[in-house]
């Protein structure tokens, strides 16, 4: 890292990144650092320890940032969710120390968390559905929360009298468990706030302040499960569309308020269900893109910068997803050919990616260097490009290959 004051370094990096976002030619191609459990390997600890030890995780992340000197860094607390997941009794992932081995990453459990006949409940009253059905299914601390009085519809004396429900044993247990969870959540938040302040002072911008999802992905991944959402497209398309419209409003509300609270304008949006091979072009234009596009436009109108990670291959979607205002977002492609993406989207959106995980994990530093050089010189030409891995740094990447990637932006220019 060059000798430089933190504030100057921060301004220099943000300018570089914003030049790329706004499709200008930066002084050099910016590079992002998105590592999850790779940090455990780098720091010589188990994935489990990374998951449970905030201080250790911060110390390793700090060391990595100083060594690799990236222009954007991913929040390390995404991989320190062990104590909090434990406290809330989270059922949607298996994590190191809880369901998977000490050196395995956490993994999401694809299940039906909302049944097909519950669409109407969700659409009529999403909060009621969360309290009554959804929350107890996904976290044990919420078991009993469904014993709350059904507030909506209660009034006057009935409302007062129904407060007796707060003495229900299940609800008492749930509230106590949630209070304990909150204590851990405060520690977690404190650690995160302190770390981000420290790293910002050192001069490193954060990749994003908050995360959101496309309405289809939110319902598919977290409610209906893969099989559920795919059959819904055929069996109950109207319900799915109606629920997505509702979900879109709720997702936007959270994204806008969370972004405002963090003061960071980047909104990270991992995209799971857009790939070419998952649905037809017509289906994509009916069930996926219009709802998501509305979100993108609303975020952009509110001064936010959507950072969309398009997973797998989305080559056939490029013309469709080009329909956004220019210079206002980042499209990070995992396996879509970036040279092709540049042809279609080069004047519209900043591209990010995508050194392949196979190369990062099994290739030599020279091969990584050559791949980065190719991306910098072709996709980086005329600006509008941020170098990154296809999905950040794979956990198994040898250190020398990571070094090669971060050195490349200093060696080559577009």
């Amino acid at each position: 890292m060059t000798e430089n004051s933190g504030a100057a370094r921060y301004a220099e990096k943000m300018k570089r990144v914003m030049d790329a976002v706004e499709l200008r030619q930066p002084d050099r191609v910016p590079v992002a650092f998105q590592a999850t459990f790779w940090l455990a390997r780098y720091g010589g600890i188990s994935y489990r320890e990374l998951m449970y030890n905030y201080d250790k995780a911060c110390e390793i992340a700090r060391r990595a940032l100083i060594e690799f000197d990236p222009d954007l860094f991913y929040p390390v607390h995404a991989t320190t969710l062990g104590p909090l997941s434990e406290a809330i009794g989270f059922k949607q992932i298996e994590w190191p120390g809880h369901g998977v081995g000490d050196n395995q990453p956490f993994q999401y459990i694809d299940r039906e968390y909302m049944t097909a006949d519950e669409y109407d409940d969700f659409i009529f009253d999403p909060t009621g559905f969360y309290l009554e059905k959804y929350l107890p299914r996904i976290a044990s601390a919420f078991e009993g929360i469904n014993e709350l009085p059904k507030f909506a519809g209660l009034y006057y004396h009935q409302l007062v009298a129904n407060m007796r429900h707060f003495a229900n044993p299940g609800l008492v247990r749930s509230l106590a468990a949630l209070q304990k969870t909150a204590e851990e959540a405060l520690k977690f938040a404190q650690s995160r706030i302190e770390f981000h302040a420290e790293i910002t002072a050192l001069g490193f911008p954060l990749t994003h302040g908050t995360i959101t999802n496309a309405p289809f992905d939110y319902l598919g991944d977290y409610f209906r499960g893969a099989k559920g959402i795919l059959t819904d497209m055929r069996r109950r398309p109207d319900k799915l569309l109606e629920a997505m419209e509702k979900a879109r409003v709720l997702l936007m509300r959270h994204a806008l308020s969370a972004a405002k609270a963090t003061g960071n304008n980047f909104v990270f949006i991992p995209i799971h269900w857009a790939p070419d091979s998952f649905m037809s072009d017509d289906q994509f234009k009916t069930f996926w893109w219009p709802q998501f596009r509305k979100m993108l436009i609303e975020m952009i109108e509110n001064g936010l910068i959507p950072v969309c990670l398009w997973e797998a291959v989305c080559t056939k979607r490029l013309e469709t997803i080009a329909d956004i205002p220019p210079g206002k977002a980042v499209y990070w492609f995992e396996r879509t050919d970036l040279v092709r993406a540049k042809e279609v989207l080069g004047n519209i959106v900043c591209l990010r990616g995508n050194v392949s995980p196979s190369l990062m994990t099994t290739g030599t530093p020279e091969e990584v260097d050559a791949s980065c050089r190719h991306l910098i010189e072709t996709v980086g030409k005329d600006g509008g490009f941020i170098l990154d891995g296809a999905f950040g740094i794979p956990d198994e990447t040898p250190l020398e290959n990571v070094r090669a990637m971060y050195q490349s932006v200093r060696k080559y220019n577009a």
Partner: protein
Amino acid sequence: MNDNEKRLVDLVADMDEDLALALAQEMLDNGDDPLRILELCREAMDIVGKRFENGEYFLPELILAGEMLDQIGGLAKPLIKHSSDKPVVALPRVLIGTVHGDLHDIGKNIVTFMLDINGFEVKDIGIDVPVAVFLEEIKAFKPQVVCLSGFLTLAFDSMKETIQAIEAAGLREGLKIQIGGGQIDETIRAFTGADGYGLNAVDAVNFSRISTGG
């Protein structure tokens, strides 16, 4: 094929679930042979598989086709009184599982379904499958093709380890191994020592066809 039979094939192939189920029920009520009904479903699945390969159908249709097959099977199978007169044809065998450390199964399930409707006898041994279980299953099931599935980058090492163990146990001869999943490419095929790799279910079917002389 009579009118009802043709209509059933079309309804299933065209994703008309409610009418297909109603017609299957009506045909069974009228005394149609349940084995014939299952055969018609297979014919419809052939059409579904071809439309998927041609890019006309995608995952929603494959999943719904599988659901229809299960539901009609549920109606027809309890009514089967006699075994088929047709000689049983030995189908080429494929063993499939997600390698150890990885809990993902959406892709694996779709590949399993596509292999099944394309005339393979498929044994799916689940997710997070230890190396030793793969070895036992290969010995017992005697597949011609083994498919190793994995979504995470940790699967690269698990796949390599599984393939090396298959070799070390002397089980590789005559066996074709393909790998598949979100991060798999030619580099990883070479790294693991697999015979082939696939990016989707059609690749898996094509590899299995070629490997079994189909």
